Every structure is written in C-alpha cells, then in structure tokens.
C-alpha cells in the first residue's frame, strides 16, 4: 500500500501545487486574449464561471459533506451582491468595509436558516430553503430603496490597495480569490471538520455517539455555504457591475445543485468542472456546433441524469472510475445511495 512516490509524483500529487497551477492557467487567459487567441467575451464567461464555482463549492460543503440541502443559494448570493452594491454606491463605503458587511449580513442570515435545519429534515428543509429564496427574491424586486428594484443595482470595479481595478484586474482578482478559496476549503475539509460533517451526513446517530455536536456543525455548514455564496455575490456584482432581481431566482439555485452533481459531490475540481458544463459549455462549445444551440437545456438534463445514474461521482471521478473498471476491485459506494432513514425525506 505504501508505495514510495518518486519526485515527479510527489510534485504533481501535491494538492497545493495543483491549485497553483490551475490558478496560473486561468491567469494566463487575459494574456491569451491580448495575443488574440481567445475572444474578449470568453474571459468574461470564464470569470463568471469561476464566480459560480465559488458559490457552488459552498453548496457542496452543505450537500456533499453535510448532506443538507439548500434551494436558496442564489438568494444569498444575490443578497450579498445587493449589499455590496448598496454599501459601495449609496453609502460610498470603501470596498473592504463593504466587503466585510456584504459577507457578514447574508452569512448571519444563512446561520439563522441553519437553525431551521434543526427542525426540518430532508425535503422539508429543501422546500423551506426554497421559501427563504423566494422571500429574498421578492425583497430584491420590491425594496427599491435598497435594491433599486427592477432597474437593477449598479456597482463599480473596486479599488483595492489603492489600485483601481479595471475589467481585467477584476478578472485576476477573481482568479486569485478562487484559488485561495480552493486551498482554504481543501484544508478545512480534509481533516477533523470534514470528517465531522461527513459523519453527520452518514449517520447522525454515530456522529452524536462520537461526541460531534450536530447542532454546531450544521450551523458551521450553513455558515460556510452562505459565506461562499456571499463572496461569489460580491465578486459578481463588481464584475458584471449590476445585480438584477431576476438573476437570483430558483433556476440559479437549481443550477448550483446540478453543478455539484455533474461535477462531483465533495470534489473541488468537480465543482469547477460542473460549473463549466452548466455555465460555459453552451457558450464556448455548444453554440459553435450547428443545430445544437437550441438543445443546451436538453443536454444539461441528459447529463444530470446520466451522471447521477452511471457516474455518481461526477466528472471529477470519471478517470479513477475508468481505472477501477480496468482490473481493480470495485470499491466505490454511490454517494447518493439511499439510507434507511431516508424513507421520509
């Protein structure tokens, strides 16, 4: 079992190095753009995809690790976007101050919703979070003083460390933050906390018997998920420079769900790949293929079903799945296999 890794393997298997390489690859994009190798819009599509990845990663902590479902992700992302737009534009706060508030406010609300999860299980929680999302959505549309209603709330490219970012600068900021988020999430979940969340999902009884406070960890899971959704919301509003109420509806929340299923539960790279499939594929691939542009939704649906049924570990695990089929014993367990207590929810 304990094979000695050679130097090369040790380097490419180092997760931190992997994250850095991914980051550098993304950071190259504007240079490629400058060299005329990719289109201007592609940079924006990828930047947005990275933003969605961050939010989806939050949902992955919640659903993948903790087994708690939320259909309100888009609502929280939107709330942060509106907060940041409001604080920077209307109250003219500096970006950093606004950022802290825009992360804090939705997160506190997210933790409160986490309290609901103490009472609701399974589908009850799903629909209750859906209702929370609908309430937020309604507020975005109606509370004109805060959200500017159906005109949409505008924001500017931020100024950080005394440097006024432009569109490309903002893209770099998104890449840097994405990679930092990847590293932090990786570190946070590979150890004790990740195991505790896993335990909670796998067997609440076992978790309690092992001294894990389900109460505390559910709140942590909701807090982490909302924090990441908020971060994504702030980045979005300062990248696209508008927050429009119709964006933050149920369809986006459901897309986040699709991302982590297609990409892979509990997988950082899977989340990234899933985001590409959902947000960038129709843009960068499908629309180039004749007759396919009208079928991106159909394809998305087919992919969701195929992945859940046949590649339950998501795209991120296709390679290892194939390797396993070629010889090794089948040792994987379906990540969404039913458990006994699932009967009611």
């Amino acid at each position, binding site marked *: 079992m304990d094979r000695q890794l050679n130097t090369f393997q040790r380097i490419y298997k180092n997760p931190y190095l992997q994250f850095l390489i991914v980051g550098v690859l993304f*950071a190259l994009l*504007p*240079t490629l*753009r*400058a*060299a*005329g190798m990719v*289109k*201007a*819009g*592609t*940079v*924006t*599509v990828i930047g*947005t995809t990275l933003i969605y990845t961050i939010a989806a990663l939050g949902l992955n902590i919640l659903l993948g690790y903790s087994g708690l479902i939320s259909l309100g992700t888009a609502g929280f992302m939107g709330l942060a976007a509106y907060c940041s737009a409001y604080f920077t534009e209307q109250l003219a706060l500096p970006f950093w101050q606004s950022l802290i508030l825009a992360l804090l406010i939705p997160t506190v609300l997210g933790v409160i919703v986490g309290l609901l999860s103490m009472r609701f299980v399974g589908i009850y929680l799903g629909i209750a979070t859906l209702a929370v999302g609908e309430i937020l959505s309604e507020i975005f*549309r*109606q509370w004109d003083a805060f959200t500017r*209603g*159906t*005109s*949409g709330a*505008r924001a500017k490219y931020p100024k950080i460390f005394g440097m006024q970012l*432009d569109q*490309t*600068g903002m893209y*770099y900021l998104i890449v840097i933050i994405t990679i930092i988020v990847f590293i932090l999430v990786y570190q946070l979940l590979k150890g004790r906390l990740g195991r505790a969340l896993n335990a909670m999902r796998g067997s609440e009884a076992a978790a309690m018997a092992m001294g894990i406070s389900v109460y505390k960890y559910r709140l942590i899971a909701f807090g982490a998920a909302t924090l990441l959704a908020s971060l994504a919301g702030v980045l*979005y509003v300062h990248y*696209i*420079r*508008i927050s*429009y109420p*119709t*964006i933050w509806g149920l369809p986006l929340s459901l897309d986040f769900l699709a991302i982590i299923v297609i990409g892979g539960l509990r997988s950082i790279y899977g989340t990234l790949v899933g985001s590409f499939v959902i947000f960038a594929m*129709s*843009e960068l691939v499908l*629309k180039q293929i004749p007759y396919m*542009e*009208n079928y*991106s*939704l159909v394809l998305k649906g087919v992919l969701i079903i195929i992945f859940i049924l046949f590649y339950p570990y998501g795209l991120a695990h296709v390679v290892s799945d194939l390797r396993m089929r070629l010889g090794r014993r089948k040792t994987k367990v379906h990540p969404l296999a039913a458990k006994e207590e699932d009967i009611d929810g």
Partner: protein
Amino acid sequence: MRKLLAALLVLALVVTTMATAVFAEEHAQGVTDTEILVGNTAAVSGAFAGVGVPFNAGIEAYFKMVNEEGGINGRELRFTHMDDEFDPAKGKAMMQTLVEDEEIFAYVGHFGTPVVAATLIDLEEYGIPAVYFATGIGELYNDQAEGAQRALFPVQPIYVTEGEIMVVRAVGSFEAEKIGVIYTNDDAGKDMLRGAEQMAEQLEVTLVSEQVAAGATDVSAAVTAIKNADVDFIIAASIQQTIGTIVKALVAQDVNVDVITTYVNVAPVVAEQIFADIDGKFNVYGNGWISLADEEALANLALLGEWVGEEFALNPYSLAGWTAAHFFAEGVRRVGEEPLTWENFIDKMEEAPIKIPFGGEVDFADGLRAGTTVMNLSKVASAEGWEEVEPLQSVNVILGIEEEIEETDETGDLEDPAETEEG
C-alpha cells in the same frame, strides 16, 4: 509582474485598435468599402425565443431588402447575432466579443431588460452607437444626453413615458378622476406605474395602485382591492400573459370599468385571449406607436411581409426588428459620402426626426433620448384583433393643449410636433 505585463499588453492592444479604427482610417470599425457589420445579442432559445426569433428576423429582412437594392452607398449591411439566453453576464460577455473581436460598427436592436440594464454602462464606455432597444426601462430615458450617452438611440416607447401617456389618455379621452393601476412586479409594470404616478400628480387626479406577480394565475386580490377603491378607469400595466389574467379577474369580479393597457399587448393573440370574456361589459384599450391607418404604413407592412416571410408577417416583434433596422439604415443613409464614423453617425441621427415605418416619428435632437412619445389608441374589437379609435397623438394634443398636426406624406424634414412634456 505578469499581471502588470498582461494589463499593459491589453492596454496596448486596445489603444492600437482604437487608433487604427479611428485615426488611421477614416471609417469606424466594422466599416469597409463594401459592407457595414452590425450585431446584437438576443435570446433566441428558451422562454424568450418567442420574442427574440421574430425580432431578429425583422432586422434581417430589412437588411436583406436593402442589400438586394445594392446596399447603402455601395455598402451592404451585414448582421451578426448571439444568443445571450437573457442572462446579463452572458450578454455582457457577448457584447465584448461583438465589439472587440467581431468589431461591429453598431448595436442594432439591443434586446432584453436584464441584459440591457447590465450593459448600458459598457455601451457608454465603448461609445459604440446602439440603435433601438427592445425594452422600455427607465434608464434609457434622457432628455439631455451628452458624450457617450448620445450614442444610445431608444426608439420604442419607454415604459415610464407610456405610463404617463396612459394617465393622459384616461384624463384626456375618458375624463377619469380616480384611476386604478394594476401593475406587474417586473420592470414594465413598475416603470409604467412610476410614469403614471408622475403624470397623475401633474394632472391632479387620484391614483390607486395594486401589484400582481408577473405570470401569476391568481390576481384576484389586487382586483378586489381596486374594486374597493371604486375607480372610474383602470390602467393594466402589465405585458403579455398577465394582461389576460387581469382582465379576466376584472370580469369575474364585475369591475365593469374601461381598461387601458400597454402597446406590447396590442396584438391579435391578446384580443383572442380576452374578447369572449369581456363580452361587451367594458372596453379594453391599448396604446400603440404603430399606426396602420395611413397608406404609407400599410405599404411598409406589406413590404415587411414580403421580406420576412409568412410566419412573421404580422408579428409585433418582427415589426419592431424591422423598425430597428430602418432607424439604423436611416442614420447610415444620412451620413452619405462622408466618412462613416461613430461621431458622424450620431450627429446625423440627431439631425432631424426619423420616421417610423409604421407611423409616427422619433426625434433625437439636442440629446433627447425618450423613444417615441406619440401614441395612438386602439380597442379590442373582435376575437381577431384591435381597431384604432384615436390616431397617433402627443401628450399635449391628447390633453387639448395643442392642435393636432396634419399628417403629411413627406418623408424626412417634418417639423418636430412639439412633444416635449408640458411642465
């Protein structure tokens, strides 16, 4: 370090592009000796395909017609478009590709409220002309556009303006004193309400408003509340789908008061939807900025049908697309033999009012960006359609402040029919 380098590279590239585009040649980007490239992004798949597809078909039909006749000053008009799925982020990305990579000369027919709202700022930064916005959000309204804002040319009515006109109609044509507004919670409904409130204050009439969700099935509560308010005229500020729901709920609750709604609803499908329900209990009126009363408009309609094909011949959105293309082409025609630059194009667009192929005209002089502000009035006359009851009139004409100006058949240099709002 790489970041800085990359940023410099991009900057250098942009500067050179601009330089080559503006200074080295006399024409703007997208213009060659033989063609002019323009484009837009519009949702042609998903829920908004029913609007986006005929709209783009209208634009393409007009360009085809122009090109068959040899183009404008020897240049053919070429149209490219992308599907933004009504998503602002995608709309923004595609705008960058269209402007920076495809190097289009202008946006023709910018489409969809969220996308337009998200990209107005980018349009202004690029300074690229954008002719016709297939939405009526209030942000487009500007009575003193300066600098880059001058490059934006809204043509179809802005919802705020239409809200004003609806109140004017209620007061001017129907002598309403207490007006009820049932508005949807989307941009169209809320902007029309805003306009209606402004005008009601000016004209000193009472206004009560109730909201319904766009696309709702149950709007009975709002109707009950309006009924309780005992109004004598109702503005149904909602675009398609919900208008039928509102009218039917009014019928169901015996609120037999005349209703006026937006131009968007003045389409046969809406008449078909509600005619049987109204059953003569009250009238449903609708604004219109397209008048099919005069011969020229009818001729243009026949022309559209000829070029766009049977499927979209009578489609309001293909009419809109055709109009968008016409306005752009008018600007190019006016530039004539002069270099076709953004600045030139914008100046020529402002030079004189431009006629709408289907009646009325829009004046962009002195930075006025308000879309069309003259509207006619139709009512649901049968299950097949609407019939015009009042011709195209400006606010002041409806209120009887000004005399109606006789329609002439001359194109071009018509005197501005003074449609500035009376304070």
